[in-house]
């Protein structure tokens, strides 16, 4: 069991944790407007896990649970495939929400515009699913590698 580093490092990590998570969520949520998306956003949030592992040690891993992370990973991938299948009436990966006026379905103005969050149909939802999957997968890899026991 790794006890982690000094209280100074722990406090700084605890302060840095919130902006890192918020920035990662921002990158995921604005994937259809600005550079970024599910993959980089999920990786940014996963750096939070690495920071926690290094500064706080491994005592908190049991409370989170590897099974729960694995579940989140599977959920992200299944959600991605599910969203892709939902448009199967026309084709796989058919973006059926665009221009419907529903959830994320506002019509977007053609040409340069400031950008609205509620556009692009399935793309933000897929970004969220992929972000969840990437976050859980990289966190799982980091935790597993950090807590691996060397057999004699």
């Amino acid at each position, binding site marked *: 069991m790794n006890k982690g580093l000094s209280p100074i490092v722990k406090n700084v990590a605890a302060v840095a944790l919130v902006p890192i998570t918020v920035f990662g969520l921002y990158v995921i949520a604005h*994937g*259809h*407007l*600005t*550079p970024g*998306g599910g*993959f980089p956003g999920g990786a940014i949030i996963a750096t939070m896990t690495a920071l926690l592992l290094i500064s706080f040690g491994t005592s908190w891993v049991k409370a989170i649970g*590897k099974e729960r992370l*694995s579940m989140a*990973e*599977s959920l*992200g*991938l299944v959600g*991605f*495939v599910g969203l*892709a299948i939902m448009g199967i009436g026309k084709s*796989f*990966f058919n*973006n059926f929400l*665009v*221009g419907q006026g529903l959830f994320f*379905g*506002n*019509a*977007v103005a*053609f*040409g340069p*515009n400031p*950008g609205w969050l509620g*556009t*692009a*149909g*399935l*793309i933000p939802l*897929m*970004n969220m699913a*992929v972000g969840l*999957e*990437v976050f*859980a*997968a*990289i966190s*799982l*890899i980091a935790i*597993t*590698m950090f807590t*691996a*026991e060397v057999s004699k």
Partner: protein
Amino acid sequence: MERNKSKPIVAAILFVFLLAMSFSIHPAGKPSETKMDDFFIAHGQEETGSNNIVAAIVFDYRGMDTLVEASVLFAAATGVFIALGGGKK
């Protein structure tokens, strides 16, 4: 001995070759085939509603690529989990 003598010759030939190749690359920003790029730039915004053309291509036009990419990450996590003792002790 023979090997050491041929080294500068090989380096010189490689240098000349790379120099010639660097001059023969077509200029940046001017691809020879632009039909597909023009289509995405002209229709991407109205077809997908996404301001970000890259997101439109990655998650809509080439969604299958992204799907398999995500599965690769899933497989990688699974492999690490299996290899480094995620199972019951």
